[in-house]
Protein backbone atom coordinates (compact mmCIF):
# COMPACT_ATOMS: atom_id res chain seq x y z
CA UNK A 1 0.00 0.00 0.00
CA UNK A 2 1.23 3.45 -0.94
CA UNK A 3 0.02 6.75 0.43
CA UNK A 4 -0.32 10.13 -1.15
CA UNK A 5 -1.78 13.55 -0.61
CA UNK A 6 -4.48 15.07 -2.76
CA UNK A 7 -5.02 18.79 -3.30
CA UNK A 8 -8.32 20.39 -4.27
CA UNK A 9 -7.18 23.77 -2.87
CA UNK A 10 -10.44 25.04 -1.47
CA UNK A 11 -10.45 28.69 -0.51
CA UNK A 12 -13.03 30.03 1.95
CA UNK A 13 -14.68 33.39 1.64
CA UNK A 14 -14.11 36.20 2.40
CA UNK A 15 -11.38 36.41 -0.18
CA UNK A 16 -8.90 38.94 1.10
CA UNK A 17 -5.68 39.87 -0.68
CA UNK A 18 -3.75 37.17 1.21
CA UNK A 19 -6.33 34.38 1.23
CA UNK A 20 -5.39 32.44 -1.89
CA UNK A 21 -1.69 33.06 -1.24
CA UNK A 22 -1.99 31.59 2.25
CA UNK A 23 -3.92 28.54 1.09
CA UNK A 24 -1.40 27.83 -1.66
CA UNK A 25 1.52 28.24 0.74
CA UNK A 26 -0.15 25.91 3.24
CA UNK A 27 -0.58 23.29 0.53
CA UNK A 28 3.05 23.58 -0.50
CA UNK A 29 4.12 23.15 3.11
CA UNK A 30 1.94 20.04 3.36
CA UNK A 31 3.56 18.67 0.21
CA UNK A 32 7.05 19.28 1.59
CA UNK A 33 6.16 17.52 4.82
CA UNK A 34 4.56 14.65 2.90
CA UNK A 35 7.84 14.18 1.05
CA UNK A 36 9.83 14.18 4.28
CA UNK A 37 7.46 11.71 5.93
CA UNK A 38 7.57 9.19 3.11
CA UNK A 39 4.27 9.78 1.38
CA UNK A 40 4.64 8.52 -2.16
CA UNK A 41 2.57 10.91 -4.27
CA UNK A 42 1.07 14.40 -4.37
CA UNK A 43 -1.88 14.84 -6.70
CA UNK A 44 -3.59 18.05 -7.76
CA UNK A 45 -6.94 18.45 -9.48
CA UNK A 46 -7.73 20.64 -12.45
CA UNK A 47 -10.86 22.65 -11.73
CA UNK A 48 -12.11 25.95 -13.05
CA UNK A 49 -14.63 28.46 -11.71
CA UNK A 50 -15.58 26.32 -8.67
CA UNK A 51 -15.82 29.10 -6.11
CA UNK A 52 -14.45 28.13 -2.69
CA UNK A 53 -14.57 24.42 -3.57
CA UNK A 54 -11.42 24.34 -5.70
CA UNK A 55 -9.10 27.11 -6.86
CA UNK A 56 -6.68 24.68 -8.50
CA UNK A 57 -6.94 25.75 -12.13
CA UNK A 58 -3.27 25.49 -13.10
CA UNK A 59 -2.14 22.22 -11.53
CA UNK A 60 0.89 21.88 -13.79
CA UNK A 61 2.34 25.01 -12.19
CA UNK A 62 1.43 23.97 -8.67
CA UNK A 63 2.88 20.50 -9.23
CA UNK A 64 6.05 22.02 -10.63
CA UNK A 65 6.40 24.05 -7.45
CA UNK A 66 5.97 20.87 -5.41
CA UNK A 67 8.53 19.06 -7.52
CA UNK A 68 11.03 21.86 -7.02
CA UNK A 69 10.58 21.80 -3.24
CA UNK A 70 10.73 18.04 -2.73
CA UNK A 71 13.07 15.13 -3.42
CA UNK A 72 11.16 11.88 -3.70
CA UNK A 73 7.45 12.40 -3.86
CA UNK A 74 5.80 11.76 -7.21
CA UNK A 75 3.59 14.47 -8.66
CA UNK A 76 0.23 13.60 -10.17
CA UNK A 77 -2.20 15.34 -12.46
CA UNK A 78 -5.51 14.36 -10.97
CA UNK A 79 -6.61 15.08 -13.69
CA UNK A 80 -5.79 16.78 -16.99
CA UNK A 81 -9.17 17.61 -18.54
CA UNK A 82 -9.14 15.99 -21.97
CA UNK A 83 -11.54 18.38 -23.65
CA UNK A 84 -10.24 20.59 -26.47
CA UNK A 85 -11.93 23.75 -25.21
CA UNK A 86 -10.01 23.37 -21.92
CA UNK A 87 -6.73 21.81 -23.01
CA UNK A 88 -5.16 21.38 -26.38
CA UNK A 89 -3.75 17.82 -26.42
CA UNK A 90 -0.42 18.96 -27.83
CA UNK A 91 0.01 21.45 -25.01
CA UNK A 92 -1.03 18.81 -22.49
CA UNK A 93 1.65 16.45 -23.76
CA UNK A 94 4.28 19.20 -23.83
CA UNK A 95 3.50 20.51 -20.33
CA UNK A 96 3.49 17.02 -18.88
CA UNK A 97 6.81 16.19 -20.49
CA UNK A 98 8.41 19.32 -19.06
CA UNK A 99 7.05 18.55 -15.60
CA UNK A 100 8.43 15.04 -15.88
CA UNK A 101 11.83 16.40 -16.88
CA UNK A 102 12.13 19.04 -14.20
CA UNK A 103 10.89 16.65 -11.52
CA UNK A 104 13.42 14.02 -12.53
CA UNK A 105 10.81 11.55 -13.79
CA UNK A 106 8.24 11.83 -11.03
CA UNK A 107 5.09 12.50 -13.06
CA UNK A 108 1.84 10.53 -12.88
CA UNK A 109 -0.48 11.57 -15.68
CA UNK A 110 -4.19 11.43 -14.79
CA UNK A 111 -6.87 12.02 -17.41
CA UNK A 112 -10.55 12.85 -17.28
CA UNK A 113 -13.28 15.01 -18.79
CA UNK A 114 -14.92 17.20 -16.08
CA UNK A 115 -18.32 16.58 -14.54
CA UNK A 116 -19.78 20.04 -14.16
CA UNK A 117 -21.63 22.44 -16.40
CA UNK A 118 -19.88 25.12 -14.40
CA UNK A 119 -16.63 24.14 -16.08
CA UNK A 120 -17.74 22.73 -19.43
CA UNK A 121 -20.20 25.55 -20.02
CA UNK A 122 -17.63 28.12 -18.98
CA UNK A 123 -15.33 26.96 -21.74
CA UNK A 124 -18.14 26.41 -24.26
CA UNK A 125 -17.55 22.67 -24.39
CA UNK A 126 -20.20 20.26 -25.60
CA UNK A 127 -20.99 17.67 -22.88
CA UNK A 128 -22.02 15.15 -25.53
CA UNK A 129 -18.46 15.09 -26.84
CA UNK A 130 -16.29 14.78 -23.76
CA UNK A 131 -16.17 11.01 -23.53
CA UNK A 132 -15.12 10.85 -27.16
CA UNK A 133 -12.46 13.53 -26.84
CA UNK A 134 -11.08 11.93 -23.68
CA UNK A 135 -10.78 8.64 -25.55
CA UNK A 136 -8.90 10.33 -28.36
CA UNK A 137 -6.53 12.15 -26.01
CA UNK A 138 -5.49 9.04 -24.09
CA UNK A 139 -4.67 7.31 -27.36
CA UNK A 140 -2.64 10.11 -28.92
CA UNK A 141 -0.75 11.59 -25.98
CA UNK A 142 1.47 8.53 -25.44
CA UNK A 143 2.25 8.59 -29.16
CA UNK A 144 3.19 12.25 -28.92
CA UNK A 145 5.59 11.33 -26.13
CA UNK A 146 7.16 8.33 -27.82
CA UNK A 147 7.17 9.07 -31.56
CA UNK A 148 9.86 11.38 -32.85
CA UNK A 149 7.44 12.88 -35.34
CA UNK A 150 3.68 12.82 -35.00
CA UNK A 151 0.65 13.72 -37.10
CA UNK A 152 -3.06 13.14 -36.56
CA UNK A 153 -6.43 13.38 -38.26
CA UNK A 154 -9.09 12.96 -35.61
CA UNK A 155 -12.40 14.10 -34.20
CA UNK A 156 -11.15 16.26 -31.35
CA UNK A 157 -8.23 17.73 -33.24
CA UNK A 158 -5.94 17.27 -36.23
CA UNK A 159 -2.36 18.33 -36.88
CA UNK A 160 0.26 18.00 -39.59
CA UNK A 161 3.49 16.19 -38.83
CA UNK A 162 5.65 17.82 -36.21
CA UNK A 163 8.11 16.85 -33.50
CA UNK A 164 6.32 17.33 -30.20
CA UNK A 165 9.00 18.34 -27.73
CA UNK A 166 10.36 17.73 -25.22
CA UNK A 167 9.88 14.04 -24.50
CA UNK A 168 9.23 12.86 -20.94
CA UNK A 169 12.13 11.75 -18.77
CA UNK A 170 10.45 8.48 -17.81
CA UNK A 171 10.74 5.87 -20.52
CA UNK A 172 8.74 4.94 -22.38
CA UNK A 173 6.46 7.54 -20.76
CA UNK A 174 4.86 8.43 -17.40
CA UNK A 175 2.18 6.15 -15.95
CA UNK A 176 -1.29 7.08 -17.16
CA UNK A 177 -4.50 7.09 -15.17
CA UNK A 178 -8.20 7.75 -15.58
CA UNK A 179 -10.40 9.53 -13.06
CA UNK A 180 -13.14 7.08 -12.12
CA UNK A 181 -16.35 8.52 -10.77
CA UNK A 182 -19.10 7.41 -13.15
CA UNK A 183 -20.27 3.82 -13.34
CA UNK A 184 -18.33 1.95 -16.02
CA UNK A 185 -15.37 4.31 -16.22
CA UNK A 186 -13.25 1.77 -14.35
CA UNK A 187 -13.92 -0.62 -17.21
CA UNK A 188 -12.98 2.08 -19.71
CA UNK A 189 -9.71 2.44 -17.78
CA UNK A 190 -9.06 -1.28 -17.72
CA UNK A 191 -9.84 -1.77 -21.40
CA UNK A 192 -7.15 0.79 -22.26
CA UNK A 193 -4.58 -0.48 -19.78
CA UNK A 194 -4.78 2.65 -17.65
CA UNK A 195 -4.63 3.05 -13.89
CA UNK A 196 -7.89 3.61 -12.02
CA UNK A 197 -7.80 6.91 -10.19
CA UNK A 198 -10.79 6.70 -7.90
CA UNK A 199 -12.05 10.13 -7.05
CA UNK A 200 -15.12 9.18 -5.09
CA UNK A 201 -14.73 9.66 -1.42
CA UNK A 202 -15.69 6.74 0.77
CA UNK A 203 -17.82 3.84 -0.37
CA UNK A 204 -15.49 0.86 0.12
CA UNK A 205 -18.14 -1.67 -0.82
CA UNK A 206 -19.02 0.16 -4.02
CA UNK A 207 -15.39 0.52 -4.97
CA UNK A 208 -14.53 -3.11 -4.17
CA UNK A 209 -16.97 -4.16 -6.86
CA UNK A 210 -15.46 -1.70 -9.31
CA UNK A 211 -11.94 -2.88 -8.51
CA UNK A 212 -12.85 -6.51 -9.12
CA UNK A 213 -14.30 -5.56 -12.49
CA UNK A 214 -11.24 -3.50 -13.28
CA UNK A 215 -8.79 -6.27 -12.40
CA UNK A 216 -10.67 -8.75 -14.53
CA UNK A 217 -11.02 -6.53 -17.58
CA UNK A 218 -7.45 -5.31 -17.64
CA UNK A 219 -6.17 -8.84 -18.15
CA UNK A 220 -7.41 -8.67 -21.75
CA UNK A 221 -6.79 -4.99 -22.37
CA UNK A 222 -5.50 -3.27 -25.49
CA UNK A 223 -3.18 -0.69 -23.91
CA UNK A 224 -3.22 2.79 -25.36
CA UNK A 225 0.25 3.46 -24.00
CA UNK A 226 3.47 1.51 -24.17
CA UNK A 227 2.70 -0.45 -21.03
CA UNK A 228 -0.18 -1.51 -18.82
CA UNK A 229 -0.55 0.50 -15.62
CA UNK A 230 -2.58 -1.88 -13.49
CA UNK A 231 -3.01 0.11 -10.32
CA UNK A 232 -5.95 1.29 -8.29
CA UNK A 233 -5.87 4.58 -6.47
CA UNK A 234 -8.54 5.88 -4.16
CA UNK A 235 -9.15 9.07 -2.21
CA UNK A 236 -10.14 9.58 1.40
CA UNK A 237 -10.12 12.32 3.97
CA UNK A 238 -7.35 12.14 6.56
CA UNK A 239 -7.55 13.48 10.04
CA UNK A 240 -5.52 11.44 12.50
CA UNK A 241 -5.46 12.46 16.15
CA UNK A 242 -4.53 10.79 19.42
CA UNK A 243 -8.03 11.57 20.68
CA UNK A 244 -10.31 9.33 18.61
CA UNK A 245 -13.39 11.46 19.19
CA UNK A 246 -11.63 14.64 18.10
CA UNK A 247 -10.29 12.88 15.04
CA UNK A 248 -13.73 11.67 14.07
CA UNK A 249 -15.48 14.95 14.74
CA UNK A 250 -12.97 16.99 12.82
CA UNK A 251 -12.77 14.51 9.98
CA UNK A 252 -16.53 14.35 9.57
CA UNK A 253 -16.75 18.12 9.58
CA UNK A 254 -14.16 18.14 6.81
CA UNK A 255 -16.10 15.58 4.77
CA UNK A 256 -19.40 17.36 5.34
CA UNK A 257 -17.96 20.71 4.30
CA UNK A 258 -16.42 19.19 1.21
CA UNK A 259 -19.74 17.70 0.18
CA UNK A 260 -21.59 20.94 0.87
CA UNK A 261 -19.19 22.94 -1.28
CA UNK A 262 -19.19 20.44 -4.11
CA UNK A 263 -22.99 20.46 -4.26
CA UNK A 264 -23.03 24.19 -4.94
CA UNK A 265 -21.65 23.62 -8.41
CA UNK A 266 -23.89 22.78 -11.33
CA UNK A 267 -23.51 19.14 -12.31
CA UNK A 268 -23.69 18.61 -16.04
CA UNK A 269 -26.74 16.40 -15.77
CA UNK A 270 -28.63 19.02 -13.77
CA UNK A 271 -28.25 21.48 -16.62
CA UNK A 272 -27.84 19.57 -19.84
CA UNK A 273 -29.79 16.36 -20.47
CA UNK A 274 -27.36 13.93 -22.05
CA UNK A 275 -26.60 10.23 -21.97
CA UNK A 276 -22.92 11.17 -21.83
CA UNK A 277 -23.23 11.90 -18.12
CA UNK A 278 -24.84 9.39 -15.84
CA UNK A 279 -26.98 10.58 -12.99
CA UNK A 280 -25.01 12.87 -10.70
CA UNK A 281 -26.53 10.78 -7.98
CA UNK A 282 -23.71 8.30 -8.12
CA UNK A 283 -20.92 10.72 -7.43
CA UNK A 284 -22.91 12.50 -4.81
CA UNK A 285 -24.13 9.26 -3.33
CA UNK A 286 -20.57 8.02 -2.96
CA UNK A 287 -19.56 11.29 -1.44
CA UNK A 288 -22.47 11.01 0.92
CA UNK A 289 -21.17 7.60 1.98
CA UNK A 290 -18.15 9.39 3.34
CA UNK A 291 -20.24 11.33 5.80
CA UNK A 292 -23.13 9.07 6.73
CA UNK A 293 -22.25 5.70 8.16
CA UNK A 294 -24.84 3.23 9.37
CA UNK A 295 -26.41 4.14 12.71
CA UNK A 296 -24.21 7.18 13.13
CA UNK A 297 -20.95 5.25 12.94
CA UNK A 298 -17.91 6.42 10.99
CA UNK A 299 -18.39 5.29 7.39
CA UNK A 300 -16.31 2.31 6.41
CA UNK A 301 -13.01 3.33 4.87
CA UNK A 302 -13.07 6.92 6.05
CA UNK A 303 -9.58 7.54 7.40
CA UNK A 304 -10.37 9.68 10.41
CA UNK A 305 -10.00 9.11 14.13
CA UNK A 306 -7.13 7.80 16.22
CA UNK A 307 -4.28 5.84 14.61
CA UNK A 308 -5.92 2.49 15.39
CA UNK A 309 -9.18 3.46 13.70
CA UNK A 310 -7.36 4.98 10.73
CA UNK A 311 -5.26 1.81 10.34
CA UNK A 312 -8.43 -0.27 10.31
CA UNK A 313 -9.86 1.89 7.54
CA UNK A 314 -6.67 1.57 5.51
CA UNK A 315 -6.75 -2.19 6.00
CA UNK A 316 -10.30 -2.25 4.67
CA UNK A 317 -9.17 -0.45 1.52
CA UNK A 318 -6.29 -2.88 1.19
CA UNK A 319 -8.70 -5.81 1.42
CA UNK A 320 -10.82 -4.21 -1.28
CA UNK A 321 -7.82 -4.28 -3.62
CA UNK A 322 -6.67 -0.67 -3.54
CA UNK A 323 -2.94 -0.11 -4.21
CA UNK A 324 -2.76 3.53 -3.14
CA UNK A 325 -4.75 5.94 -1.01
CA UNK A 326 -4.52 9.67 -1.50
CA UNK A 327 -5.58 11.83 1.37
CA UNK A 328 -7.42 15.09 1.31
CA UNK A 329 -5.81 16.87 4.25
CA UNK A 330 -7.97 19.93 4.72
CA UNK A 331 -11.13 21.51 3.36
CA UNK A 332 -11.93 25.19 3.32
CA UNK A 333 -8.99 25.78 5.71
CA UNK A 334 -11.27 24.63 8.53
CA UNK A 335 -8.42 22.76 10.22
CA UNK A 336 -5.54 24.97 11.40
CA UNK A 337 -2.37 24.31 9.43
CA UNK A 338 -0.42 23.12 12.48
CA UNK A 339 -3.13 20.53 13.17
CA UNK A 340 -3.03 19.34 9.57
CA UNK A 341 0.72 18.85 9.82
CA UNK A 342 0.35 17.08 13.18
CA UNK A 343 -2.21 14.73 11.66
CA UNK A 344 0.19 13.88 8.84
CA UNK A 345 3.04 13.26 11.28
CA UNK A 346 0.91 11.02 13.50
CA UNK A 347 -0.27 9.03 10.50
CA UNK A 348 3.30 8.61 9.24
CA UNK A 349 4.53 7.52 12.66
CA UNK A 350 1.73 5.19 13.77
CA UNK A 351 -0.11 4.00 10.68
CA UNK A 352 2.16 4.12 7.66
CA UNK A 353 4.71 1.58 9.00
CA UNK A 354 1.97 -1.03 9.37
CA UNK A 355 1.46 -1.05 5.61
CA UNK A 356 4.98 -0.63 4.30
CA UNK A 357 5.77 -4.13 3.18
CA UNK A 358 6.72 -5.69 -0.14
CA UNK A 359 6.88 -2.30 -1.77
CA UNK A 360 8.03 -2.02 -5.33
CA UNK A 361 10.21 1.04 -5.77
CA UNK A 362 9.23 2.00 -9.31
CA UNK A 363 5.87 2.67 -10.90
CA UNK A 364 4.67 -0.08 -13.17
CA UNK A 365 6.20 -0.05 -16.62
CA UNK A 366 8.03 3.25 -16.49
CA UNK A 367 11.59 3.86 -15.43
CA UNK A 368 12.61 7.17 -13.99
CA UNK A 369 16.25 6.62 -14.82
CA UNK A 370 15.79 6.44 -18.53
CA UNK A 371 16.91 9.86 -19.55
CA UNK A 372 16.63 11.11 -23.07
Amino acid at each position, binding site marked *: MKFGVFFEISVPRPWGPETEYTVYQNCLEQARLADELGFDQAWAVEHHFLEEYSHCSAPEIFLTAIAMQTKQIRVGHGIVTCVPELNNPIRSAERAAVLDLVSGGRLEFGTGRSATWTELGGFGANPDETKKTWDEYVRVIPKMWTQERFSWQGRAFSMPERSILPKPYQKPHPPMWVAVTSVGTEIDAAARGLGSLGLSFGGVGEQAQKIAGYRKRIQSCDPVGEFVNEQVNTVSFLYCHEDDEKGITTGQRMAGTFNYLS*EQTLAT*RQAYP*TPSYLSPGLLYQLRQESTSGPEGRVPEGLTIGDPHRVAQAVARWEEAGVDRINFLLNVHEMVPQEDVLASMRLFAKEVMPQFQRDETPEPAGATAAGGA
Partner: protein
Amino acid sequence: MPLTGTRDLSTIADSAPLLTSLETEPWELKGAQHLQLHYELGGDRQALLPPALHPSIPPTLLVNVTHAPDSEVGAFTLATVRVGCRAGARPRGLLVRGYCDSASATSVLRERWGFPVDLADVHLDPSYARATTSVTLDGATILAGELVDPQPITGADVQYMATLALARVARDGEETLLIQVDPDYTFDRAQRGVPRLTAFDAEAWNLPGASGAHPISASLTTVDMTLPRLRYLVHPDRDPLKAVERLPQPQPA
Protein backbone atom coordinates in the same frame (compact mmCIF):
# COMPACT_ATOMS: atom_id res chain seq x y z
CA MET B 1 -19.87 29.31 3.64
CA PRO B 2 -21.02 29.81 0.06
CA LEU B 3 -22.75 33.04 -0.85
CA THR B 4 -26.35 33.47 0.25
CA GLY B 5 -29.19 35.61 -1.01
CA THR B 6 -30.06 39.04 0.32
CA ARG B 7 -33.67 39.47 -0.79
CA ASP B 8 -36.44 40.14 1.72
CA LEU B 9 -39.26 38.07 0.27
CA SER B 10 -41.81 39.42 2.72
CA THR B 11 -41.84 42.61 0.65
CA ILE B 12 -43.36 40.75 -2.29
CA ALA B 13 -45.44 38.24 -0.35
CA ASP B 14 -48.71 40.19 -0.41
CA SER B 15 -49.77 38.64 -3.69
CA ALA B 16 -48.55 35.17 -2.74
CA PRO B 17 -51.19 32.57 -1.89
CA LEU B 18 -52.27 32.01 1.69
CA LEU B 19 -52.21 28.36 2.74
CA THR B 20 -54.50 27.57 5.62
CA SER B 21 -53.56 23.89 5.58
CA LEU B 22 -50.37 22.06 4.72
CA GLU B 23 -52.25 18.81 4.21
CA THR B 24 -52.86 18.04 0.58
CA GLU B 25 -53.32 14.93 -1.46
CA PRO B 26 -51.20 14.16 -4.53
CA TRP B 27 -52.52 15.32 -7.92
CA GLU B 28 -51.70 13.26 -10.98
CA LEU B 29 -51.51 15.01 -14.32
CA LYS B 30 -51.39 12.35 -17.00
CA GLY B 31 -49.88 12.94 -20.42
CA ALA B 32 -48.60 16.41 -19.64
CA GLN B 33 -46.26 18.17 -22.03
CA HIS B 34 -43.45 19.96 -20.28
CA LEU B 35 -41.07 22.47 -21.80
CA GLN B 36 -37.98 23.68 -19.98
CA LEU B 37 -35.70 26.44 -21.21
CA HIS B 38 -32.57 26.56 -19.07
CA TYR B 39 -30.30 29.61 -19.06
CA GLU B 40 -27.44 30.93 -17.02
CA LEU B 41 -28.81 33.83 -15.04
CA GLY B 42 -27.97 37.42 -15.81
CA GLY B 43 -28.40 39.88 -12.97
CA ASP B 44 -27.41 40.09 -9.34
CA ARG B 45 -27.33 36.50 -8.18
CA GLN B 46 -27.71 37.38 -4.51
CA ALA B 47 -30.39 40.05 -4.92
CA LEU B 48 -32.92 37.57 -6.33
CA LEU B 49 -32.66 35.01 -3.53
CA PRO B 50 -33.48 35.11 0.18
CA PRO B 51 -30.84 34.49 2.87
CA ALA B 52 -31.84 30.81 3.18
CA LEU B 53 -30.70 30.00 -0.34
CA HIS B 54 -27.33 29.84 -2.05
CA PRO B 55 -26.94 30.85 -5.67
CA SER B 56 -25.75 27.82 -7.57
CA ILE B 57 -22.41 28.16 -9.36
CA PRO B 58 -23.41 29.45 -11.85
CA PRO B 59 -26.95 30.62 -10.96
CA THR B 60 -29.57 29.73 -13.55
CA LEU B 61 -32.93 30.85 -14.90
CA LEU B 62 -35.47 28.10 -15.51
CA VAL B 63 -38.49 28.68 -17.73
CA ASN B 64 -40.97 25.82 -17.30
CA VAL B 65 -44.25 25.51 -19.16
CA THR B 66 -46.59 22.59 -18.50
CA HIS B 67 -49.68 21.77 -20.52
CA ALA B 68 -51.96 19.35 -18.69
CA PRO B 69 -54.54 18.10 -21.20
CA ASP B 70 -56.67 16.39 -18.64
CA SER B 71 -57.11 17.11 -14.95
CA GLU B 72 -59.91 17.18 -12.42
CA VAL B 73 -60.39 20.86 -13.26
CA GLY B 74 -59.95 20.43 -17.00
CA ALA B 75 -57.06 21.29 -19.29
CA PHE B 76 -54.66 24.03 -18.29
CA THR B 77 -51.25 25.47 -19.10
CA LEU B 78 -48.92 26.70 -16.38
CA ALA B 79 -45.82 28.84 -16.90
CA THR B 80 -43.19 29.52 -14.26
CA VAL B 81 -39.82 31.23 -14.26
CA ARG B 82 -37.54 30.11 -11.45
CA VAL B 83 -34.08 30.95 -10.19
CA GLY B 84 -31.85 27.88 -9.95
CA CYS B 85 -30.24 27.78 -6.52
CA ARG B 86 -29.36 25.56 -3.57
CA ALA B 87 -31.28 24.96 -0.36
CA GLY B 88 -28.34 23.80 1.72
CA ALA B 89 -26.81 21.25 -0.62
CA ARG B 90 -29.99 20.51 -2.61
CA PRO B 91 -30.68 21.88 -6.09
CA ARG B 92 -33.88 23.92 -6.13
CA GLY B 93 -35.73 26.49 -8.22
CA LEU B 94 -37.15 29.55 -6.45
CA LEU B 95 -40.59 30.54 -7.75
CA VAL B 96 -41.97 33.93 -6.82
CA ARG B 97 -44.52 34.38 -9.61
CA GLY B 98 -46.08 32.22 -12.31
CA TYR B 99 -49.07 32.31 -14.62
CA CYS B 100 -51.80 29.88 -15.56
CA ASP B 101 -54.55 30.07 -18.19
CA SER B 102 -57.27 28.39 -16.10
CA ALA B 103 -58.96 30.04 -13.15
CA SER B 104 -59.88 26.75 -11.53
CA ALA B 105 -56.37 25.31 -11.96
CA THR B 106 -54.93 28.55 -10.61
CA SER B 107 -57.02 28.12 -7.49
CA VAL B 108 -55.92 24.53 -6.99
CA LEU B 109 -52.26 25.35 -7.48
CA ARG B 110 -52.43 28.30 -5.11
CA GLU B 111 -54.50 26.67 -2.40
CA ARG B 112 -52.91 23.22 -2.31
CA TRP B 113 -49.25 23.81 -3.24
CA GLY B 114 -48.75 27.48 -2.61
CA PHE B 115 -47.85 28.27 -6.21
CA PRO B 116 -47.82 32.08 -6.56
CA VAL B 117 -49.66 31.99 -9.87
CA ASP B 118 -52.08 34.41 -11.48
CA LEU B 119 -54.26 34.27 -14.55
CA ALA B 120 -52.79 35.06 -17.96
CA ASP B 121 -52.85 33.71 -21.50
CA VAL B 122 -50.33 30.89 -21.58
CA HIS B 123 -49.52 28.88 -24.69
CA LEU B 124 -47.36 25.87 -25.40
CA ASP B 125 -47.24 24.76 -29.01
CA PRO B 126 -44.98 21.80 -29.81
CA SER B 127 -44.31 20.82 -33.39
CA TYR B 128 -41.78 18.53 -35.01
CA ALA B 129 -39.36 21.35 -35.71
CA ARG B 130 -39.71 23.35 -32.50
CA ALA B 131 -41.81 23.98 -29.44
CA THR B 132 -42.88 27.55 -28.82
CA THR B 133 -44.31 29.16 -25.74
CA SER B 134 -45.69 32.55 -24.83
CA VAL B 135 -47.32 34.27 -21.90
CA THR B 136 -49.46 37.35 -22.43
CA LEU B 137 -50.67 39.50 -19.55
CA ASP B 138 -53.09 42.38 -20.15
CA GLY B 139 -52.17 42.35 -23.82
CA ALA B 140 -48.42 42.49 -23.23
CA THR B 141 -46.10 39.61 -24.00
CA ILE B 142 -44.17 38.93 -20.80
CA LEU B 143 -42.49 35.79 -22.02
CA ALA B 144 -41.81 34.22 -25.39
CA GLY B 145 -39.41 31.46 -26.18
CA GLU B 146 -38.85 28.23 -27.96
CA LEU B 147 -36.96 25.00 -28.16
CA VAL B 148 -35.37 24.58 -31.57
CA ASP B 149 -33.61 21.69 -33.25
CA PRO B 150 -35.19 18.94 -31.12
CA GLN B 151 -33.29 15.66 -30.83
CA PRO B 152 -34.70 12.54 -29.19
CA ILE B 153 -33.25 11.57 -25.83
CA THR B 154 -34.59 9.35 -23.08
CA GLY B 155 -36.50 10.50 -20.05
CA ALA B 156 -33.70 9.06 -17.93
CA ASP B 157 -31.47 11.82 -19.27
CA VAL B 158 -33.73 14.56 -17.92
CA GLN B 159 -33.50 15.90 -14.40
CA TYR B 160 -35.86 18.58 -13.10
CA MET B 161 -35.23 20.70 -10.05
CA ALA B 162 -37.78 20.82 -7.27
CA THR B 163 -39.62 24.10 -6.77
CA LEU B 164 -39.62 26.35 -3.72
CA ALA B 165 -42.82 28.36 -4.08
CA LEU B 166 -43.31 31.65 -2.27
CA ALA B 167 -46.44 31.51 -0.12
CA ARG B 168 -47.94 32.72 3.11
CA VAL B 169 -48.88 30.09 5.64
CA ALA B 170 -51.42 30.57 8.39
CA ARG B 171 -50.26 28.65 11.46
CA ASP B 172 -49.56 30.49 14.67
CA GLY B 173 -49.94 33.75 12.85
CA GLU B 174 -49.04 34.31 9.24
CA GLU B 175 -45.57 33.43 7.96
CA THR B 176 -43.84 33.97 4.65
CA LEU B 177 -42.45 30.59 3.66
CA LEU B 178 -41.19 28.64 0.71
CA ILE B 179 -43.19 25.52 -0.09
CA GLN B 180 -41.16 22.68 -1.57
CA VAL B 181 -42.96 21.01 -4.46
CA ASP B 182 -41.05 18.07 -5.89
CA PRO B 183 -43.23 16.28 -8.45
CA ASP B 184 -42.73 12.69 -9.49
CA TYR B 185 -42.24 12.22 -13.22
CA THR B 186 -42.82 9.16 -15.37
CA PHE B 187 -41.44 9.96 -18.80
CA ASP B 188 -43.04 8.85 -22.00
CA ARG B 189 -41.03 10.87 -24.52
CA ALA B 190 -38.20 13.36 -24.28
CA GLN B 191 -36.38 15.68 -26.63
CA ARG B 192 -33.50 18.03 -26.13
CA GLY B 193 -32.88 21.17 -28.11
CA VAL B 194 -31.50 24.66 -28.05
CA PRO B 195 -33.35 27.29 -25.97
CA ARG B 196 -34.30 30.66 -27.37
CA LEU B 197 -35.79 33.27 -25.10
CA THR B 198 -37.11 36.06 -27.31
CA ALA B 199 -39.11 38.04 -24.75
CA PHE B 200 -38.81 38.18 -20.99
CA ASP B 201 -40.26 40.89 -18.77
CA ALA B 202 -38.39 40.31 -15.52
CA GLU B 203 -40.63 42.66 -13.52
CA ALA B 204 -43.74 40.69 -14.49
CA TRP B 205 -42.14 37.61 -12.94
CA ASN B 206 -41.06 39.47 -9.81
CA LEU B 207 -37.42 38.94 -10.75
CA PRO B 208 -36.14 42.48 -11.23
CA GLY B 209 -32.90 42.62 -13.18
CA ALA B 210 -32.97 38.95 -14.14
CA SER B 211 -32.28 37.80 -17.66
CA GLY B 212 -31.37 34.68 -19.56
CA ALA B 213 -27.74 35.54 -20.10
CA HIS B 214 -26.37 32.39 -21.66
CA PRO B 215 -28.30 29.41 -23.09
CA ILE B 216 -27.69 26.00 -21.56
CA SER B 217 -30.33 23.59 -22.83
CA ALA B 218 -33.98 23.07 -23.62
CA SER B 219 -36.06 19.95 -23.18
CA LEU B 220 -39.56 18.92 -24.13
CA THR B 221 -41.07 15.88 -22.48
CA THR B 222 -44.33 14.03 -22.33
CA VAL B 223 -44.80 12.92 -18.75
CA ASP B 224 -47.19 11.67 -16.17
CA MET B 225 -46.58 14.20 -13.45
CA THR B 226 -47.73 13.89 -9.86
CA LEU B 227 -47.75 16.89 -7.60
CA PRO B 228 -46.98 15.37 -4.19
CA ARG B 229 -48.01 15.81 -0.60
CA LEU B 230 -46.11 18.65 0.99
CA ARG B 231 -43.05 17.40 2.86
CA TYR B 232 -40.75 20.35 3.43
CA LEU B 233 -40.86 24.08 4.01
CA VAL B 234 -38.01 26.54 3.86
CA HIS B 235 -37.88 29.57 6.12
CA PRO B 236 -36.49 32.18 3.75
CA ASP B 237 -34.78 34.42 6.29
CA ARG B 238 -32.94 31.77 8.23
CA ASP B 239 -29.38 30.49 7.90
CA PRO B 240 -29.34 27.88 5.08
CA LEU B 241 -28.31 25.16 7.51
CA LYS B 242 -31.30 25.87 9.75
CA ALA B 243 -33.90 26.86 7.18
CA VAL B 244 -35.55 23.57 6.22
CA GLU B 245 -38.58 22.35 8.19
CA ARG B 246 -39.79 18.81 7.70
CA LEU B 247 -43.56 18.43 7.86
CA PRO B 248 -45.14 15.52 9.69
CA GLN B 249 -46.09 12.73 7.33
CA PRO B 250 -48.84 10.16 7.71
CA GLN B 251 -47.64 6.86 9.10
CA PRO B 252 -47.86 3.93 6.68
CA ALA B 253 -50.79 1.67 7.48
